[in-house]
């Protein structure tokens, strides 16, 4: 019996120490590799200089990294802003602005407001991408609200003691020599390099089709309502107004940007019966901005959500893996090159001839004209690109049935 007890004790001790030792080793590795750049550990080329794009905790990671970055210019919005608006754009540099891209995929106005408030103190300029779908109103589900940010101590603890962090540390080591890693820059920008491999393997047509299919399913589920109970407001609009107030209080120059959706997506919006609400939403944004300006806010609404020769960029044929697209990854996400033109327009930089009429600032005096023009241009583009129009219409009429297709 004493032998059994001794062997049990030794076994228990080794069991306990190996649990403790392995956990400590993981924490040390996570700290040294610092995959999320939240500990400020020195980076070493070939080891941890390139950081992977996190699949989890991105909101919390960007909050911590953004705070340490001390940005004087802030980019906010969802994935379109994260991959499209580059903090290294010349407009920031020439104004000696230190820009940070705090945009997070899937985020809404709630996050945008919270993130602005958190990173606001040193903020002079903010570029805020606004997405129409975030403003469609559906009654909140019970228990659906959750804090936007996790406690920063908890985030740091998870960055040391979690399977996710361990896998991301290993991923950091693995991606250093990759040609197109799925990475996140230290200024928060997502260069979406991994899409280059996707395009090389599948071609743009596949990406466009897949995104269009997902958009069709999403649009089919959207509520056809902008306001809560016809009250003329909604949580998203309230958040927007609070954001404008916060910007005014901080004397921040704010650019609200309606994203430059590809023509295919605009046609899908129209075919889903959402175009009138899209127009009304533009009026609401214009009115909210005008109201904020009258109270001292420095805010401009930029409308790029209109059919235009840039947004109607032709999609390469099915199976074509060579032709490069200049402006878009797929209908939902524009490339940094188009984002650069958007920022050029917003900051009054010189634009190339092809973009001279790209985007307009919405003000109450011109909003109706702009809305009418967009309606006309959409109809014209529908005629000019019948294949796209047919695809959008087919997806709208059968958003789920169109998922399985014959191979090309």
């Amino acid at each position, binding site marked *: 019996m004493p032998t*059994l*007890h001794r*062997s*049990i*004790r*030794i*076994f*228990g001790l*080794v*069991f*306990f*120490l*190996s*649990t*403790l*030792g*392995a*956990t400590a080793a*993981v924490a040390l590795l996570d700290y040294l590799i610092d995959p999320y750049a939240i500990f400020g550990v020195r980076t070493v080329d070939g080891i941890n200089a390139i950081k992977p794009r996190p699949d989890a905790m991105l909101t919390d990671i960007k909050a911590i990294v953004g705070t340490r970055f001390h940005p004087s210019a802030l980019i906010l919005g969802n994935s379109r802003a994260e991959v499209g608006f580059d903090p290294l754009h010349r407009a920031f540099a020439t104004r000696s602005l230190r820009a940070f891209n705090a945009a997070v995929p899937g985020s809404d106005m709630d996050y945008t407001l919270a993130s602005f408030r958190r990173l606001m103190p040193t903020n002079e300029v903010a570029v805020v991408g606004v997405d129409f779908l975030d403003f469609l109103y559906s009654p909140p589900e019970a228990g659906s609200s959750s804090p936007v940010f996790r406690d920063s101590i908890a985030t740091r603890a*998870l960055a040391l*003691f*979690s*399977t*996710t962090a*361990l896998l991301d540390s290993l991923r950091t080591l693995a991606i250093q020599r990759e040609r197109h890693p799925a990475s996140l820059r230290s200024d928060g920008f997502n260069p979406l390099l991994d899409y280059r491999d996707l395009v090389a*393997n*599948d071609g743009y047509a*596949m990406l466009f*089709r*897949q995104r269009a*299919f*997902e958009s069709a*399913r999403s649009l089919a589920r959207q509520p056809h309502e902008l306001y809560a109970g016809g009250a003329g407001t909604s949580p998203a609009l309230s958040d927007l107004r609070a954001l404008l107030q916060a910007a005014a209080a901080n004397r921040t120059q704010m650019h609200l940007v309606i994203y430059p959706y590809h023509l295919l997506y605009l046609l899908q919006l129209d075919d889903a019966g959402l175009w009138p609400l899209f127009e009304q939403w533009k009026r609401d944004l214009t009115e909210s901005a005008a109201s904020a300006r009258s109270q001292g806010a420095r805010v401009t609404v930029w409308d790029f959500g209109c059919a235009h020769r840039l947004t109607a960029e032709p999609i390469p044929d099915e199976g074509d893996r060579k032709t490069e697209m200049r402006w878009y990854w797929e209908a939902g996400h524009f490339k940094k090159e188009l984002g650069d033109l958007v920022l050029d327009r917003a900051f009054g930089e010189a634009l190339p001839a092809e973009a001279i009429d790209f985007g307009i600032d919405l003000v109450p005096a011109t909003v109706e004209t702009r809305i009418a023009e967009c309606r006309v241009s959409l109809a014209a583009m529908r005629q000019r690109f019948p294949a796209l129009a047919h695809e959008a219409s087919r997806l709208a009429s059968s958003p*789920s*049935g169109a*998922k*399985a*297709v*014959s*191979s090309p």
Partner: protein
Amino acid sequence: MLFNSFGFLFVFLPITLLGFFWLGRRSAWLAAAFLTLASIAFYGWWNWHFVWLLLASIIFNYVMGLVIASMTGRTRRYSFAVAVAADLLLLGYYKYANLAATSLDTVAGTQYGPLDIVLPLGISFFTFTQIAYLADVFQHKAREPRFVHYALFVSYFPHLIAGPILHHKEMMPQFQAPRTYRPQPNSVLLGAIIFTLGLAKKVLIADNLAPYANAVFAAPDHPTMLVAWGGVLAYAFQIYFDFSGYSDMAIGLSRLFGIRLPLNFNSPYKSRNIIEFWRRWHMTLSRFLRDYLYFPLGGNRHGEPRRYLNLMITMLLGGLWHGAGWNFAIWGGLHGLYLAANHVWRRWFGEGVARTRIGALASVALTFIAVNVAWVFFRAPSVEVGRDVLGGMFGEFGVALPAAVFAHIEPLRHALESLGVTSLLGGGRQFAMTYVWVALAGAIAFAAPNTQQITRRFRPALASAGIASVRTLRLRLNWRWATGLGLLACASLLSLSRPTEFLYFQF
């Protein structure tokens, strides 16, 4: 409070364990009372408002147990009937009133539903435990005069929320034994090992399968065959690793206190027929249904047709025990049919087929497929969704592979297309990861020994001696096992960042 949470592991459990053994050195009664209070606090952590319900149920059944034991003849029978009826009414109110109201609304056009009733955690488990106790008292098989022991028997936190469903006669002797109140190093170590294995099953396997099952059942939308099977297989393994992981954790936690719980799982997917499946799956529920429903209905004592009817009734009620909904009734009904068919087959053909190697493999495969078909309705949020997924499994919406997968098997493209396999937009990574996780979980479920087999020589649970031994992966007290388990514990702890509920908490 969840077993797989930091609060439980690093606050509740150490305090309860140390308090129990510290008091146990002074008084067994004090230690039992402390463990009872700790168990009630454990329950109240979820929602204090329902503590009164648990306490009221314990006090009522304890008193009724005393009353029934002191009565004779017709009064005894009436007392028993009243007590069971009250238990069933309580369960019925919380669990089935909403279904009754909404069904009435549908049929009669009334507007009673939906009712705003929150299902108290574990009510099905603590109600069944106590009905079984009352039945045993009624049949002169049990009697418990010590309130603290009775309250501990019902509220004992390792089993309170989701079982195993305990039997009075297997727990009371352990509560009475003085050695229970002294720490046993081998019990503590074995408990920690079993808990680690259970935790790993839950957080490393079940939780990683969940997104792939959820994706199909949340919005099935006419799934194609491989997508539907992927989701259903993911769920089949998720629920097994989730629930058996929970049961292992319960058994392990209880062993820390020196108390053995009954086995609840014994590699059910290795079963060669559905009768065997129910002897290996949720074993304590099967035992309860057999002893307190199937046998009282007559079992097989009144001929074959009556036996099948009794099986069907038992399984239908077993299905409805899991939840108030037609999908649970269909799940139970399917298992009732399977069991009846299995008995008919046995009667006509015996078990010769399953004795050959190929026959055994085919039997396991057929049983597994049948179980999966039933899981569809168990998991689906509605009968319509279940019907959609089932249609997908049997090819109603075609067979398709994600385009990205097609691109990687270019040489097979023509052959697959000639068979009618089409290309699916998107979901390539999801599709691939679903089958990677299903393959991994399947390999463990079918080829690896279970927790009880691994720890068999240390008698991990009640009746574990009956578990078949294995040649590989038998626990040995050497440094390799200690280190391996330490690494497994570390991996599990690192996965606790987002604790998820156990599937059986909803029942």
